[in-house]
């Protein structure tokens, strides 16, 4: 008798579980791109047709990498969580991971992007979806590199030449002796004099670099806003006849930001 009672209880709870699952809206979705970093723009498209959410205004509830800023109150999702209508029962939600979760990229990398779709009051919801994890943001080594990546005219700037990443024969073979640097304002006018062939310092990683404070290397009038640095590396290379000739790489630039 006891056994029958136990089995009945188990069956009852299983039934409740199955019924609850059945109440979740069966929707279709796509996430584009399929692989994305915390800084990529991602589009979630949903099709509510044929589900219990059809004809309703859908809202996102995002989680996985922590609670998204859309997750304020389950019974009253905010407007920022609302999908944008595409057509009929098709809707889309566009986001950037760092903004959606209000977290730095390193806090999101390798964490899942998970979401569900719900009505504003949470009365109807879809099942949970976890399409993918946030991918690492790849560092791509290049011939010319600057440090830091985001800087202002008031901060030290380092410019590097790494010939291991040259894509032309001359860039790979030339003997670098210095760097040419000029400052430009927003109109493209020179600020101070261009500095030529400034000496390079060999770095531990094999690259060559030059570090400077713009306001010390150049004479910048008080209050003058500098828009960017344009630089190229210079040296010598043997031409086809074996004669040593001067050589300068293509120019690269660093745009200064108004950092606070």
């Amino acid at each position: 008798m006891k056994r029958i009672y136990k089995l009945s209880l188990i069956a009852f709870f299983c039934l409740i579980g199955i019924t609850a699952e059945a109440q979740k809206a069966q929707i279709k979705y796509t996430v584009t791109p399929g692989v994305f970093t915390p800084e990529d723009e991602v589009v979630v498209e949903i099709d509510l047709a044929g589900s219990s959410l059809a004809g309703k205004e859908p809202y996102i509830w995002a989680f996985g990498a922590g609670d998204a800023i859309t997750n304020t109150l389950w019974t009253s999702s905010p407007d920022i969580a609302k999908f944008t209508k595409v057509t009929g029962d098709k809707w889309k939600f566009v986001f950037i991971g760092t903004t959606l979760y209000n977290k730095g990229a390193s806090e999101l990398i390798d964490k899942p992007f998970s979401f569900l779709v719900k009505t504003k009051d949470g009365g109807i919801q879809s099942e949970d979806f976890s399409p993918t994890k946030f991918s690492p943001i790849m560092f791509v080594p290049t011939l010319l590199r600057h440090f830091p990546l985001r800087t202002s005219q008031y901060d030290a700037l380092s410019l590097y030449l790494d010939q291991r990443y040259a894509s032309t024969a001359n860039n790979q073979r030339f003997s670098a002796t210095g760097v040419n640097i000029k400052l430009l304002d927003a109109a493209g006018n020179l600020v101070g004099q261009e500095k030529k062939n400034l000496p390079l310092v060999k770095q531990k990683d094999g690259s060559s670099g030059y570090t400077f404070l713009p306001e010390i290397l150049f004479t910048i009038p008080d209050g003058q806003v500098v828009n960017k640095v344009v630089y190229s590396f210079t040296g010598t290379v043997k031409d086809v006849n074996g004669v040593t000739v001067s050589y300068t790489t293509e120019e690269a630039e660093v745009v200064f930001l108004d950092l606070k």
Partner: protein
Amino acid sequence: MKKLKYIIFLLVVLSAAACKKDQLKDIGEPRKVVNAMKGNWTLNSVIQVDEYAKDKLFPFTAVDLTGLYPYRETKLTLNTTEDNKPATFNISFGNSPKFLKTTQGNWTVDNYDTPQTMTLTNGTTTDQISLGKYGLLDQGELLLSVKKYQVGSDGKKTLVLSNNYYFKKAN
């Protein structure tokens, strides 16, 4: 079987009886940060940290700027009142780049017991500086960090750069 139960019961009782209260070490007096900051300091090293690259786990995140200019000529004096509250300050750069707007005036902290930020004020001119690890103070070092933020169109601030100034106690 019954014997085994008694043996297990006896073992549990004996184990419990063997327990004794751990004597926790006294953690000592709370660290007096402002008091430790008081005095004369000489700049020892300058490290620029690319917080933007650090956040993305990129390989190049810091550059040592110490040898670039005569930063070590920078001397900082932090004075306190008799009851160890922040009072006046003086900073002389010598031939070092002037990395702060103020050179003298008053200094304050955001929280006396656990300061995170120090503000240097001279009239309407101010410098906001983040304080580094308190543990450095025990080793006679003071880390002052000037943080730079990129501000988005929505007003959101993102830390992208830190200039870290490591001072050594001069006396």
